[in-house]
């Protein structure tokens, strides 16, 4: 029984904003299948009533005084922009003609 289908690979690629060629998608399906088969070992583990651990150290969220501090200079922040105008990053259109 396969754990992941080609259709699911296409769906998660869509969610992750990745385009895969047919060959890439086929290779990913094969690799993910192998990996999921390996991690299936966890299915045999009894986790009833076990609290999940998100972080190795139990830290309280650190807080700081609510004081204004110097931000990065906008020019410096934009220095790596593939395209910039004024103090903004330029991107292609986000909303289409029908306003969607």
């Amino acid at each position: 029984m396969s754990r992941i289908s080609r259709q699911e690979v296409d769906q998660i690629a869509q969610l992750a904003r990745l385009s895969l060629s047919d060959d890439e998608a086929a290779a990913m399906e094969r690799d993910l299948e192998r990996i999921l088969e390996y991690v299936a070992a966890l299915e045999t583990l009894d986790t009833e009533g076990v609290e999940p651990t998100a972080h190795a150290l139990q830290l309280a969220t650190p807080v700081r005084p609510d004081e204004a501090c110097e931000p990065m200079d906008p020019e410096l922040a934009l220095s790596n922009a593939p395209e910039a105008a004024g103090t903004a990053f330029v991107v292609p259109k986000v909303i289409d003609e029908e306003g969607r």
Partner: protein
Amino acid sequence: MSDIREALGSLAAARAALDAGSLSAADLVEAALTRAQDHAALQAVVGVRPRHARDEARASDERRAKGERRSLVDGIPMLLKDNMVVAGEATTCGSRILEGFVSPYSAGVVERLQSAGAIVLGRTNMDEFAMGSSTESSCFGAARNPWDPSRTCGGSSGGSAAAVAAGIVPAALGSDTGGSIRQPAGFCGVTGFKPTYGRVSRWGLVAYASSLDQIGPFTRSAADAAALLSVIAGHDPRDSTSLPVPVPDYAAALTGDVSGLTIGMPRECFVEEGVEPGVLESVREGVRELEAAGAKVVEVSLPHSRYAIATYYLIATAEASSNLARFDGVRYGHRAEGATDIDDLYRRSRSEGFGAEVKRRILLGTYVLSAGYYDAYYKRAQQARTLLRRDFDEAFAKCDVLVTPTSPELAFPLGEKNDDPVRMYLSDIYTVTANLVGVPGLSVPCSPAAGMPVGLQLLGRSLEESTLLRVADAFQRRTDHHEKRPPEPV
């Protein structure tokens, strides 16, 4: 061995030469740049900053002439893994998606090194976004093992391990998410140290899996690691997981005395199956050495360690899929040409910029976090993480330090595991637990096998780096494996 080659071989030797006045910081920088070139075939170094390094060396020499020394590492050149940002310099993470990126700021560790007078010479090769165990997924091509260039130097911090092993620099920094400092240190015969999670600031370290990532040193010896950790450790409010606790005097811990310490051998880590011949023998011999030095050795158990790799790959990829969403072609890095709308821009920029292993891990992480699979994979992995932590708590009730092999194998031939991700992942079987549990881990060279280095791993309680350094240093006082140097290039 020439004086300069010896001085670049360890922090202690470099410091001694500088203190004696037999070499200047400028001499060390010139020699390190030359050695980086002589060892170009290793592909360990991916970028140097000669002009700044020379300026910084001159400043250090001027300080010294006035009788000032900022720290034990003042005037010593070092290399950083290419995922720690330096203001005004490129950072690529071994990825095409960061081609052309120049950092507007410096990482916390870079600030600390520079305030201590250390010289940042350049950047080392790594697996793309630190995802790999062989440095083969780098966009620069694979880094090679100085002991045998047909073999891997390990990964993902392979370039840093190879550079220290080859004596290009006396020390380097790497990052360790599942073994990425310790495994290459073991493969290359150097000392590699992953401190407790939160001990060293992650500010300016490009994130792979934020709950697991930690920066640490590559050095010739544990004594050198103690000196370098003293410089880079400490609280940084810009990293919300940085621990607000004092940093002990690590050098003071190096007493050479391990009597009174108990060393635990987890029985699950000494099973022959799946381990390359020679590895367990070398590690057992190392344990006998520690016993002869006065440590008590007991057997302990980590019953859930067999779930560690599965747990690690679910948690690390889930976190990576989220962290790597920022690489979208908008604010920095590669942007695809001719995108029709914003979604097309994201998709094309990311698809062109990321390599296969990064895509594989983003997809796996996206899958395990997606509706319908979250409980089966991600939540279950987090529960397994709790069980692993309990295993460690119980083991550390019976011993002070755990000892295991660093890796189940010797440095493997390049290309051997490229088409089998699961086999590649299993290379980290002994190292991933320390990241999942957050404890410090250190790899020291023990007896070689088949002419290649073998790493012995020591794991300690959270924040007890001093104990690990003390044990590793005591071991190195009784052995000379860490002093062995690979052959020079012809």
